[in-house]
């Protein structure tokens, strides 16, 4: 249980935000941040723990989002059920792309490029297919009832996305302490050595990609319910894939809290940029790029890595009082 105490503390603290600062601006900002934390946690499972760098998380995000929206709009499915089916659809796409790429033995930049290609193909398909509303996009009807997964105020949305982030943190912590997690990290460190010790590396990678896709798809489903509008550039756009990997890399790759820390930093920087520059489009991406370069060059462990380095230094140089 001790392993889960920090997660409980962080989630409890974040749950107080709507009570302390109930303004729409703050809640919008925090919802966007937690959304990226969730989407990034999906990337972190496959990329951070498994060493398989996907550039195409948008494929899962968009599939979750579109499934949720289309099931409601076209088939009259209940929003909550649509949400669950959206997660399942994202996971299914993850399993298919995972099976195709990992069975073909794709690694490193080849794997990254092919995942990017899948996301782009889905984006182009979504921008022409009638079922997704093609170029016009898809609008979920306003229906402000909890049964329809729509709320009068922002606060319930905030608590729901927080619950998802909390669940993803718990899931990653459980994986860290499991055989599956040990196998995943082992194949990241050395795939041949893992094989020689009985790890079916292809299967483990496909399983990780399926879970990763499910987590990221949950973010997409939430996006659809929160904004009630989707088009191909939003759902399958490269912005999702970029933010999904920025957050964990900046926050600390392969750590439980990395994506959440990184999302807070990335989103805060984004807001600050907007304050300084007005709304020059794309400038936030320039800032993200700069931060990414700085992290990779000076703190490859991200913020989480930096924090543990500082803690180790403090322990080394500050003499413990009880010995003095």
């Amino acid at each position, binding site marked *: 249980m001790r392993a889960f105490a920090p997660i409980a503390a962080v989630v409890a603290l974040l749950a107080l935000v709507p009570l302390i600062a109930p303004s729409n601006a703050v809640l919008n900002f925090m919802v966007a941040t937690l959304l990226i934390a969730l989407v990034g946690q999906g990337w972190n499972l496959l990329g951070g723990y498994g060493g398989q760098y996907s550039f195409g998380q948008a494929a899962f995000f968009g599939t979750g989002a579109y499934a949720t929206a289309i099931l409601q709009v076209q088939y009259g499915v209940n929003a909550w059920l649509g949400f669950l089916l959206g997660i399942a659809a994202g996971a299914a796409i993850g399993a298919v792309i995972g099976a195709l790429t990992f069975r073909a033995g794709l690694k490193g930049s080849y794997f990254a490029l092919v995942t990017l290609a899948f996301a782009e193909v889905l984006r182009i398909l979504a921008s022409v297919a009638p079922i997704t509303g093609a170029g016009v996009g898809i609008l979920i009807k306003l229906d402000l009832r909890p049964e329809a997964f729509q709320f009068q105020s922002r606060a319930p949305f905030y608590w729901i996305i927080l619950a998802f982030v909390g669940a993803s943190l718990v899931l990653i912590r459980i994986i860290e*302490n*499991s*055989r599956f997690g*040990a*196998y995943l*990290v*082992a194949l990241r*460190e*050395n795939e*041949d*050595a*893992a*094989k*020689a*010790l*009985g*790890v*079916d*590396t292809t299967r483990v990678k496909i399983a990780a990609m399926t879970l990763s896709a499910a987590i990221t798809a949950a973010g997409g489903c939430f996006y659809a319910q929160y904004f009630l509008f989707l088009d191909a550039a939003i759902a399958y756009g490269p912005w999702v894939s970029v933010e999904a990997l920025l957050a964990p890399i900046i926050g600390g790759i392969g750590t439980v809290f990395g994506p959440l820390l990184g999302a807070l930093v990335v989103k805060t920087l984004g807001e600050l940029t907007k304050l300084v520059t007005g709304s020059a489009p794309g400038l936030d991406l320039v800032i993200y790029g700069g931060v990414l370069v700085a992290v990779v060059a000076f703190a490859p462990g991200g913020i989480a890595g930096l924090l543990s380095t500082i803690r180790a230094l403090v322990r080394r140089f500050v003499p413990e009082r009880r010995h003095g």
Partner: protein
Amino acid sequence: MADALLHVDNVSIRFGGLLAVNGASFTAEAGRITALIGPNGAGKTTLFSIISGFLRPTEGHIVYDGVDITGEPPHRLARRAIARTFQIVQPFAQLTVRENIAVGAHLARPARADALAAAGDVARAVGLDERLDQPAYALTVAGRKRLELARALAIEPRLLLLDEVLAGLNPSEVRDMVPVIRAISERGVTIVMIEHVMQAVMSLAEQVFVLSEGRVIAEGAPRAIVGDPRVVEAYLGHGAASRMAGAGHG
């Protein structure tokens, strides 16, 4: 005579124009230590990669415990209790020694706590128990060789393929390691070892096969093998054996 646990039958592998292993056959008897020696480039490590499933032979068969396992992938062979070490050590660098060994121990133990506990026991058997919580990248060469051995042992092998676990060690480290290998053998594990450190081969192996240019050119007890003129020529060049004999008599 003991039963053969491993039978390598007329195995060849071709990489483009290069015939790296050329109709090699040998047998490893259950519970014994068999050594595979030969000059650099003879195809020893390639043969190990074939036995452990990393390479598929162009021709020939690998029979293990009476079953033809040719072409089975490495993870399935590990489940059949075949373990290998790598000549160039392949640690999980960012993980601790305990976590490294636990990956192997997980094969028979789904629970994390059980695998970590078993890793501690294995580490004691190879003399790594003092370093359990160090990251693998912080180990010395000798430490990394022990870690290779420990991870392989953690899957509880019946057949253990050791690829130069003594290479790069100084003489005192070799002296420390030889009893560790002997103890593994005495617990009933069948060992096939590729080794250049002849002092260790002489003291450990019961049967030696000599590989040269992809084929087995000689086999026998260690004492007999070192005097075999074909073996001397494989290492020192054509005519070396007769020149040495001439020098000895002259």
